[in-house]
């Protein structure tokens, strides 16, 4: 299970960074989304993967899953969701005003050094 998760995380990071380097702004946002998912899975993996145990510590239940990574991942998902929402609306507005989706063309419009 850990091996599968590691391969999954590696491919998410790789594809995320690949998409970040594309020329289109939409692909860049998709790259950031993929990276965000990769890091969430990484926290999940590093928190200790266990099968079917509840995240509760009690007198009766000795086996428990670590609740802290679950909290970290939830927080990270919510934060990245908010940031991605902003980024998508920003890209939409950029397309509306600058009439281009091409990151190289944005730099050409700048004019000075």
């Amino acid at each position, binding site marked *: 299970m850990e091996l599968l998760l590691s391969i999954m995380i590696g491919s998410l990071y790789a594809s995320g960074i690949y998409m970040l380097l594309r020329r289109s702004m939409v692909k860049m946002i998709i790259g*950031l989304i993929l990276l965000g998912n990769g*890091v969430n899975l*990484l*926290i999940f993996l590093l928190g200790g993967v266990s099968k079917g145990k509840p995240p509760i510590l009690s007198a009766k239940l000795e086996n428990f899953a670590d609740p802290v990574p679950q909290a970290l991942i939830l927080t990270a998902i919510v934060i990245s969701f908010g940031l991605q929402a*902003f980024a998508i609306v*920003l*890209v939409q507005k950029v397309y509306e005003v600058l009439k281009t989706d091409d990151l190289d063309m944005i730099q050409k419009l700048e004019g*000075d*050094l």
Partner: protein
Amino acid sequence: MNETILFLPILLQLATAVLILFFWNHIQSQKLISIFSNLATFFLAGLLLFAPAYSESMFVQAGNWMPPFGISIVADTLTKVMVALTSIVGLAVSVYSYVGIGNSRARYGFYPSFHFLIMGLMGAFLTGDIFNLYVWFEIVIISSFVLVSLGADKERLQASIPYVSMNLLASVIFLTGIGILYGLTGSLNMADLSIQVANIENRSLVQVCAVFFIVGFGMKSAAFPLYFWLPSSYHTPPSAIASLFGGLLTKLGIYALIRVFTLIFIPDFALSTLLEWIAVLTLFTGAVGALIQTNLRKMFSYIIVCHIGFMLAGLSLHTNTSLTGTIYYLIHDIPAKANLFLIAGLIYRLTGSYYYKDMGGLQKSHPLLSFITAVALFSVAGIPPLSGFFPKIFLFRSSLYLSDPLTVSMILASFLTLFSFAKMWKEVFWKEHPTGKELNMNFTPSQWIFTMLPILFLLAISLFIGLGAEYITKIAQTISGEILDPNIYIDTVFPKGGSF
């Protein structure tokens, strides 16, 4: 009041932001609430820093959950100094934006975002938990996204794309580092991490984790080679916002680097060399980048990058003297850079443009402004007895013995900074005003007051940091001694000694 005063900087700003949201349509009330709230934060920060009742390092647990499981708010001297500097810049920007931010921007949520930003900064400086640091970083960056793209016209949007994407990437890298750190140690509390990281056998994985933190925080503090988002984006927002960014956001990255690399990771030879070369290249490329600029604010942006190199240099050498230099540089740099951008805004108001070719003759028409600008520029360039000079003494004193490349690049960077400023002075103040362009002389008295007051306030703070160098050196040496000995921090959070 006991330790719960530590929650107050954060809660005060949160309350202000929420209160301002209720006055969404009354811009005048928003402005007044903002100024009063920042004034209150300024006095609170002064109280925290100087009152004898709060002179010890303090900590408080959020929700009274015990460390290392609960979130700690820790205030040692470094934190208190950073909170004080943030409140100073926040107050100056608040007063400046009374006239500096037009009603159209203010109508679309400038003031709430501004206060959320300050709240995020206060939280980031006060927290003692590394995931909480991540959360406060995100609050800061999302408020800054709103501020940098406010207006949504062509220039703002062109700048916001590199800014947004690079900051999001830096957050992801930083979160990766946190994840690895949690996997290695099982803890998120900085004091606990400090104890546990030293005992891990798998040193290479610790090394990798440290590099993730260097890259993540380095990107946020505009270190080489990932600083290019800064000159692409800091020259477009209105001057109040640019001053806020230039004075505080990169220094947040430097603070995080100092905290992580003195408390959690102790840099060994490989990491120190990496940090040293990053510092050398930042100094060099930032200074050279500033040479060729013809836009005033772009030149100032490259100067920000260049001077980040000074702070990284002190951090990489990791001795008592060099860390004193870094801390002193941080104290000097925050008001100085904020002041530079406010002055740039004033020059824009007078001449109508940020480009050198449209400016000139300001010395003849505004001698007092020229004098003030000269003092601010000399302070940044490092001329004694102004504030930029004294941290360099400590930095040079340690780098002369330990690292030749750093010494050379620091000398070069100082000289090139002075050269860029001399070039700017010639273009903006000495040369004749280009004919056909009128100086905008019709300021109302209230515009003059609200523009000059924050500039003079920041200048006074800067002069105090320079002329009162003996006092600031004592503070910087106290901080340097505190951060070089992690046991002081650990004993603050775990008073009985040892982790849970």
